[in-house]
Every structure is written in C-alpha cells, then in structure tokens.
C-alpha cells in the first residue's frame, strides 16, 4: 500500500509527511494501546472516546479556571502538571468504574461501556455547558504542537507509551495475566489469578490512556471541545483488530496495534494526497480495510496449514 501511494504522489514519502502521519495517529494510537489491553483481556470499551472528551475538558477547565470550593470559600488553582494529572486521573477513574461495574455486576463490557459512553458524554456537556474551553496557554499547547529534537511532542509521548506497554505486556506478571484472562478466564481463575482485579486494572488503564489522548487532542487544538473524540472508539477497535488482535481475547500484541494504526493513518493521509473525492475516499477506505485484512488472513492460513 505504502508503495502504491508513493508511486502515485510525490508528497507521500517526505520526512515532513512522515512526521505528519505519526502526529496524526498519536491520539488513535494512545486509545488503541488501552483498547488492546482491554481486548486482550477479553473485553471491549466503547467509552474511550467519551472519556477522552471529559478528561480533556476537565483538565482544560481546571487549568483555566481552577476548582472553586464554595463551602470553604477556596479557589484551587492548578499548575500545568496538576491539570495533566487531573486529566489522566479522570480517565483512570471512569475506566476503573467501567471495570468495577463489569466485574461486580457481571455486566457485558459492551453494555457497561455503552452506558459509560452516555454518562461521560453527558458529564462533559454539563461540565462545559456545551462550549469549548479555550486559551490554555503556550505550555499546554506545546504538548500537542511542540517538537523536541525535531520529533513532535505527541509522537514522543505515544512512543514512550508504546515502549512502556510493550514492556508491560511482555515482561510483567500483569501482562501475562492479561493474556491468561483473555485466553481462558476459567483456567486463569482456577490457577489463582485474581481475574476481577486484572480486569478492573485493564479498564482503568484504558481510561487513563484515554485521558492522555484527551490531553493530546486538547493541547493540539489549544481547546477542549465538548464533542471531541466522537466515534474514536470504533477507530481504536479497528486499529487493534487490523493489527491482528483477536476480539475474543488472549491473542495479539501492542506492536500489531501500532501497525494497525499506521495502516489506517497512511491510508487516510494517502487518500487525501491522491486527491480522491471525499465520497470515493470512504468507499476506497472500506475496500482497502477488507483487502488488507483478507490478505493477512490468507497468509496466516497458509502458515497454519
């Protein structure tokens, strides 16, 4: 695919465009890492886009206006770092709530996170009153638009997360248990793994990563949009699945997801560069996803038999 696009457009294989693509996939990648963990554990999360919006809005809000505690007549002001921590914490808590509901009441993850989707969207609207929170300052914007050593900040951040979660999934007990829970929940439980605690952690991490993604989006636009992240959950799931992770859990890798995000990113970028009409873009994108995954399947089957 990469070759085909580069043949058709000279602007494709330029360093600038390379950074462009990486910067553009960073938000999806952030969500997709969390989604990979969740899907590996045998679950799904439809609320990450909504959590992204709420986390971004809360971080922006506290950064700009602080938090007023009228009963104590106090206005808490937040530094940049404080706002970042709060944004991630909001994501973490909502994710934790997902995990809690799923394990405690045995709700199907699909339903539980669909509920959270609705709740978090509503809370975002309530928090912002439907208006974007803007003017967050240079320092905060730097997270989304700055670059260090020529590499954009969002790329640094996502790169760090990729490394972190590759290590977690491959080298730690938590990572191992994740695969075990997703691969055979009953066996994992009988072997003495605290399945519920693993699941709660997984959703909480997914939420925290959605929080990071919310910060990135907000910093990039220098504005927290109340309807940010609409539909991003499907993009994230698509990236994870295209990256070879099985929706039934237990099988897949973070690196596969990175590849999945890249495929989608290159596809989006390439279709624009080739000046395909927006309507045809959708058709072509659909077809390419089908073809890409079909080829992957055919190769996998060849190896299997």
């Amino acid at each position: 695919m990469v070759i085909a696009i580069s043949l058709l457009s000279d602007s494709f294989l330029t360093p600038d465009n390379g950074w462009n693509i990486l910067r553009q996939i960073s938000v999806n990648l952030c969500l997709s890492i969390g989604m990979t963990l969740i899907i590996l554990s045998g679950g799904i999360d439809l609320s990450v886009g909504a959590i992204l919006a709420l986390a971004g809005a809360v971080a922006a809000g506290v950064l700009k206006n602080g938090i007023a505690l009228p009963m104590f007549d106090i206005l808490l002001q937040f530094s940049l770092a404080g706002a970042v921590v709060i944004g991630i914490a909001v994501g973490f808590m909502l994710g934790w709530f997902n995990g809690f509901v799923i394990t405690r009441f045995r709700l199907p993850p699909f339903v539980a996170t669909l509920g959270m989707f609705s709740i978090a969207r509503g809370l975002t609207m309530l928090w912002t009153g439907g208006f974007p929170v803007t003017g967050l300052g240079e320092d905060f914007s730097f997270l989304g638009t700055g670059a260090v050593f020529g590499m954009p900040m969002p790329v640094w951040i996502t790169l760090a997360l990729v490394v972190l979660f590759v290590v977690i999934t491959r080298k730690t007990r938590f990572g191992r248990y994740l695969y075990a829970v997703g691969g055979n929940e009953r066996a994992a439980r009988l072997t003495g793994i605290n399945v519920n605690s693993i699941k709660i952690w997984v959703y909480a991490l997914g939420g925290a990563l959605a929080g990071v993604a919310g910060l990135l989006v907000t910093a990039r636009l220098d504005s927290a949009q109340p309807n940010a992240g609409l539909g991003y959950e499907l993009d994230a799931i698509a990236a994870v699945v295209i990256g070879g992770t099985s929706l039934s859990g237990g099988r897949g890798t973070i690196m596969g997801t990175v590849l999945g995000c890249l495929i989608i990113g290159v596809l989006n970028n390439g279709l624009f560069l080739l000046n395909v009409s927006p309507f045809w873009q959708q058709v072509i994108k659909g077809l390419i996803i089908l073809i890409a995954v079909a080829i992957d399947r055919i190769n996998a089957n060849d190896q299997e038999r």
Partner: protein
Amino acid sequence: DKAEQNQAPTSKRIAVVVSTLNNPWFVILAETARDRAIELGYETTIFDSQNDPSKEAAHFENIVASGYQAILFNPTDADGSVANVRRAKNANIPVFSMDREINATDVTVSQILSDNYSGAVLIGKEFVKQVGKTGKYVELLGLVGDNNTWNRSKGFHSVVDRYSGLEMVAQQSADFDRAKALEVLESVLQANPDINAVFCGNDAMAMGAYQALAASGKAEQVKVFGFDGADDVVKLIAEGKIAATGMQFPKVMARTAAESADAYINGKRDFPAKTPVGVELVTLDNVAQYSDFGRK
C-alpha cells in the same frame, strides 16, 4: 518558505476544508466553493472534517505539507479551529473562512460569515409577530457542541425572552437532524399537546418538526420556524405551512471566498477582516424572491 520550496507546484491549487458533508447545506457550500475555484483556474480538493477539529487539524497538516496556495475554510468550531488556521498562517497559506466564525481575528485573511445571531434576532421578532405575546413553544437545538446552535438560540431568546407570556415548555436537542427532530417533537407533543410554536435551529429540524405536527394533525395550530433556507422549507413557506426561516447564502459566501482567494494569490492584500453576509428573513410575504439557499 519551506512548503513552497519542497513542492514546486505543478499547478495552482486551492483546498476547500469543510466541517462536514453530512448535511446538504455544507455540501452546497463546499461544492460551490470548489466549482468557483475551478472556474478561476485552480486545481481544487474538498477535505471533509466530519465535524471533528482533530480531523481538521490533520487536513491542515496535510495541506501545508503538500503546498496548496489557499484554503477556503468552513471551520468545525470557533475555538477548536483557531490552532489549525494558525498552522496554515505560519506556513504562509492564506485562509478564508466561510459561514462560521472563528474566535481570532489575526489568523485568517478574511472571514465571510453568516450572521447567525442577527438572523436569529430577525426570526425572534417574526416569531413574536406571528405567535403573539403569549403562548407556549418548544425549541429544538442543533448539535449541542456547535456554536451556531447557541448563536441562534441566544439571538432568538434575546428577543423572545422579553415577553413573559411566551413560555418555553421544552428545549431539546435534535442534532440538526430531520429524523431526530421528528422523534423528539413526537415525544414532546405527548407532554405538551397545546403548544403554539416550534423554533428550530435549522431547516432539517424544521422539516422533521413539521412532519411530526402534520402527522398528529396539529400543523395548522402550531407555527414552525426554521433557519437556513433549505429547498423543502422554502416550498412549505410558500404553501403557508411553515411560518418563517432565516435565509443564509452559502453560495454567496462560497463564491466570495473563492474569489477573494484568487485575488490574494494575484497580489491583493487588503481584505476586510470580516465580511458579514446577512441572514434574511423569509416569510409568506417575500418567499417569492427566494429559492433554496439563495435569491432567485
């Protein structure tokens, strides 16, 4: 600058970045802009931001990277789009915004805007005129995250709220969508069968609301007010079935933007920071002068 050095352009190119194509109003805007730019001799591409400032950001990056000469821009959000436009400005690509305002004056060359607030004030006045100073009404909001939704709502209320006899019995969102408006009004009518009017944030919702009323036999009794000047609504105004709408001029805005960009590329530099394109009130009295999204 860098972009221009990298890509010695083979031909002159203009990008049209539109907030969404999921609404015919914007399809008109984008396609008119494109067609006019092509007429003026540019290779032109439409970029659909799908109502997402982040997707818009990606478009701007790609546009900057591949060296367009100008951007005709319909922003997804007044605040969320500022950073994107600044990016283009820093790459010396002139941006002309259409229809929706962005909250920064220094980044676009010119903003060719629909005056939503004033238009809604006009609707508000017509509303009081037709409905009277007492009555119950419902407001259908557009997408709650969209600032045109609120500009229109505020403009409308700036007039109507001065009459304490006009009671808003429900305010609900129908996302600028015809099907949703139909359903929302059906439900709202159950609780409030005795309303006198509905104010809708756009014409797609006005159509949905009208259909709900028609289906429950209340079309005569309840006056519907819309915003946009869409085909079906203009026709229904002519038939006396919808009370009024605010006519926007997407085609005018799009052509003006394209022509301004062409002038800029040919060396012109002094543009008004804002070119407001007035929203005109369309009622049964003057409907003959209008067709869809413009004057005849």
